């Protein structure tokens, strides 16, 4: 018909960027692999740390996959899924964040040749899903249930395995005991807020104190504080949410007097209101007064006179921990304080920790909370130690609920991989190849552990494959002797939940990335710093990632 140049149909808004098809898919995979390469060196006991500058003042040194990923500030939409799974692994089980990312990368890499050969992504997805289901089943079969009487040993081992790769690895026995002690104190609900971690720079790691009770840094204080008692045996603790200061009771009130002689009575009335409060507290018999709000100088001096200790502006979570430790209840008013809201413990003391002074409540008999005062040289050192402890606490907490365990050091992955490979031979069709490559991808964990330790990973993997073929299901990488060993015997234990969750999360993320073949990127959304404010939906739209807009050559 007519050879006229048809005007282009403007379907999308100017500046909108679209790209689609196989190239898009491959490019997404490549982007993910680039990210995986960044974090893979942190895996395993010989994993290295990353130093990330955010600004001159703000530097993080970390070994924790989720932390590093978060700090990388990734904008590529497909690669961002990796950050999300690392985060979800972090919030779900708290550990194994690096391995989940490494695994996803390996699955994607495994899928790439198939895609290039023209296999439809959906077939790959289906095969991976079924492989994942089988792997899950296998892990459940493999896992060893722990008898309640061995509980403590089990928890300690899990805690120390989680610390293996961290900076505090050399003190893992010391810390794993502490972590288990802390978690065991909590009630069945296991509220993590009830384990307070205080950081105080200076001292060696061994100076870290575990307090089965509560502790907090001395708060701001007014004159008169030093005259208060600093050590009270069997204190009576009263926790308040009341401001103890001489102040206007109502902000917008105004008093007018016409007779100057009444002035004094006005002043007196105000004082009386205030002193009545203090007297009421004194009458309650409490001798340690803590308040979330300020305790003014007058009150401080009043309490000092009465041999009462007080601290104002105590942070809320500290106050809650004190309540849990001593059995006190936070009061919002000072009228009618009944004895049951006053808590107690064996000893209250103010003590020097490093360069600060801490208020310690120790010997709490029915405590359901614990505080760890973390020591170490340098802020960043302590920050990293805190992250490691947090991971370890999370692991212990999960392990306490799910009492089953598998061996670490890549042993479980090898066993699952062997199982899947055997299984793949029993089916025909494209699936056979796909499941086989999924199985091969699982081997990335032991390989990476060996690589990071500077071992010959091919050699180690061959030995491992052989052992597993012979039915030795717990053989993994031996870091100490550059070889392989039964990691179950050498007590490298991980809760089976961690493994389950990481395999499922990695497969899910892989499937998500594979199922995307088109990205529509709105220009507005590309504006810098628009990312975090995006809604969940638009973010998912963006998750169909792609390359650079400026270079697309159109």
């Amino acid at each position: 018909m007519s050879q006229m140049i048809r005007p282009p149909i403007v379907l999308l808004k100017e500046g909108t960027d679209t790209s689609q098809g196989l190239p898009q898919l491959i490019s997404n995979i490549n982007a993910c692999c680039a990210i995986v390469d960044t974090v893979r060196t942190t895996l395993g006991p010989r994993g290295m740390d990353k130093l990330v500058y955010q600004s001159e003042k703000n530097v993080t040194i970390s070994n924790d996959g989720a932390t590093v990923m978060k700090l990388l500030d990734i904008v590529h939409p497909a690669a961002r899924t990796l950050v999300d799974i690392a985060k979800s692994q972090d919030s779900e089980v708290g550990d194994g964040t690096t391995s989940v990312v490494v695994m996803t990368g390996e699955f994607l890499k495994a899928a790439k040749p198939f895609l290039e050969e023209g296999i439809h992504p959906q077939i790959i997805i289906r095969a991976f899903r079924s492989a994942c289901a089988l792997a899950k089943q296998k892990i459940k079969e493999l896992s060893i249930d722990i008898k309640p009487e061995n509980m403590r040993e089990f928890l300690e081992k899990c805690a120390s395995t989680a610390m293996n790769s961290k900076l505090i690895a050399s003190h893992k026995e010391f810390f794993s005991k502490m972590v288990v002690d802390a978690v065991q104190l909590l009630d069945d609900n296991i509220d993590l807020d009830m384990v307070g971690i205080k950081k105080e720079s200076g001292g060696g790691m061994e100076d870290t104190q575990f307090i089965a009770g509560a502790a907090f840094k001395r708060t701001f204080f007014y004159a008169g504080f030093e005259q208060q008692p600093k050590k009270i045996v069997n204190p009576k603790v009263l926790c308040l949410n009341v401001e103890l200061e001489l102040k206007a009771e109502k902000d917008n009130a105004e008093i007018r007097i016409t007779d100057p002689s009444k002035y004094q009575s006005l002043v007196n009335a105000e004082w009386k209101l205030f002193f009545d409060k203090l007297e009421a507290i004194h009458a309650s018999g409490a001798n340690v007064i803590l308040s979330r709000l300020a305790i003014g100088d007058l009150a401080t001096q009043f309490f000092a006179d009465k041999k009462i200790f007080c601290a104002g502006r105590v942070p809320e979570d500290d106050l809650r921990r004190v309540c849990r430790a001593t059995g006190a209840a936070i009061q919002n008013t000072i009228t009618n304080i009944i004895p049951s809201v006053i808590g107690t413990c064996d000893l209250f003391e103010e003590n020097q920790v490093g360069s600060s002074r801490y208020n310690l409540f120790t010997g709490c008999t029915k405590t359901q909370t614990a505080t760890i005062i973390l020591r170490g040289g340098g802020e960043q050192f302590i920050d990293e130690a805190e992250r490691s402890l947090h991971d370890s606490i999370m692991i212990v907490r999960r392990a306490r609920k799910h009492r089953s365990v598998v061996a670490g050091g890549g042993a479980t992955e090898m066993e699952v991989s062997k199982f899947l490979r055997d299984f793949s031979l029993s089916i025909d069709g494209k699936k056979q190849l796909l499941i086989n490559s999924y199985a091969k991808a699982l081997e990335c964990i032991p390989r990476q552990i060996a690589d990071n330790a500077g071992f010959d990973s091919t050699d180690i993997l061959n030995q491992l494959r052989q052992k597993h073929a012979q039915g030795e299901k717990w053989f993994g990488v031996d870091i100490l002797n550059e070889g392989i060993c039964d990691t179950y015997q050498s007590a490298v234990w991980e809760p089976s939940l961690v493994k389950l969750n990481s395999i499922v999360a990695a497969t899910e993320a892989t499937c998500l990335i594979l199922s995307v073949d088109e990205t529509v990127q709105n220009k507005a959304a590309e504006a810098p710093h628009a990312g975090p404010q995006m809604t969940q939906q638009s973010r998912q739209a963006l998750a169909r990632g792609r390359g650079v807009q400026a270079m697309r050559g159109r």
Partner: protein
Amino acid sequence: MSLAFDEYGRPFIIIREQQAKERVKGIEALKSHILAAKTIANIMKSSLGPKGMDKMIVSQDGDVTVTNDGATILDNMQVDNQIGKLLVQLSKSQDDEVGDGTTGVVVLAGSLLEQAESLIEKGIHPCRISEGYEVACKIATEHLKSISDRIEFSKENCEPLIKTAMTCLGSKIVNRYHRQMAEISVRAVLSVADLDRKDVNLENIKMEGKEGGKLEDTQLIKGVIIDKGISHPQMPKTIKDAKICLLTCPFEPPKPKTKNSIEITNAEDFKRLGEIEQQYFIDMVEKVKATGANLILCQWGFDDEANHLLLQNGLPAVRWVGGLDLEKIAMATGGRIVARFEDVSADKLGHAGLVREIGFGTTQDRYLSIEECPNTSAVTIFVRGGNKMIVEEAKRSIHDALCVTRNLIRDNRIIYGGGSAEISAGIKISSKADEIATVEQYAVRAFADALDAIPLALAENSGLAPIETLAAIKAQQLKDNNPRLGVDCNARNTNDMKEQHVFDTLPGKTQQLLLANQVVKMVLKIDDVIKQGAESDE
């Protein structure tokens, strides 16, 4: 970071502002870190030991600081490099924890990293190096414990404490009078210490400095000094057997906190108001006078009218005393802080044997010194010196000495100084190293070599031939089996540190090793540095 291209020639942008970001990886990163740490350690090296030199640091505003204290130098140097910052923090945490040995810890960390560098070049995995260091560190701390001595002291016999404090002050500018300074520090700590609980709150020792006078005029005052003068020039300047009234309320009619206004409708009322106000002042002064007080310290001010009234009643007063000073005075004099005039009573007064106002030379500055207090749990060290820099440095030095004394009260084990402990630990570690079968052996041996850095620096700073001196002492130590032999920095013709009375605290030394090791471990574990773009153009 450079751009990555996929198979289709399209570049990726994965990370925000990717091009602007810098990334250093692997050995390269490690080496640049080690270099940074070494550079800083080399700066510090020359301030180590009794013959160590001072550094002069000029801040951006032109303030000059002259100091020998490692933590202060690093703090003021404004180190920009991240690894450098780790070292700054390292010396700061040594300062917080022990208060002394801040230079040594940095020198040690630098030397450990230097040793690690050559091991990395040999191809040993950094993690294995730090594992080896860990082993060596454990051997060293155990060994130090075994060669430590306990010193016995009591409130009466504080000679050993003074000796240790003297070692600490040895390297400082005050060392001309270091016996006197050490005595002052020890007496100050002992008077605030709770020997039963082994707790010392250094906040109860106030340090006040004033330029002018001589360094040896520095004195310990069992009481408090505040930089305030008596409020009226005609009031007496010296008060014996002072009964002090401590007030946190102003000399003026009380003001309710609730918003208020007085409506005056006729002249009669206005006059009455004036009278009432007058009456307030009279009442207040009366109340205080009735208790028998002969000195008033007030946290707030009072106007000339009140001041005059006080003068008429023969009540010397001081206004605008800081809250924390007031608290210290209350503790020292056994008084109670009074918040309103209704509560003033005789039993709340504080007592002091002597209160006097001191003036200095020709300056207008006035200090009020409250001395001979019944309770000595708050004391003041009053530092004098030729100029501001010296006063500041003397303050820092005394602070170090206070910390050392405190540590001894907490834990009375000592170790001999002069590098003897390091040499002895080094010998021990290298002998143990041969028993280790794995690659860690090299790292353990490297740790022993790194320990030599301290005696080497000591010898060098004292003008001795470092390597010869060290070799001689090492041989002597092995021959006599005497771990107390160290570098004779003061040329006293003996290498035995026990005879020289050069002591360090055991926790201080152990802490140095542990902290240095920790930082080294942290530096060795980093293999990847990711830098944000904007800040990276240094």
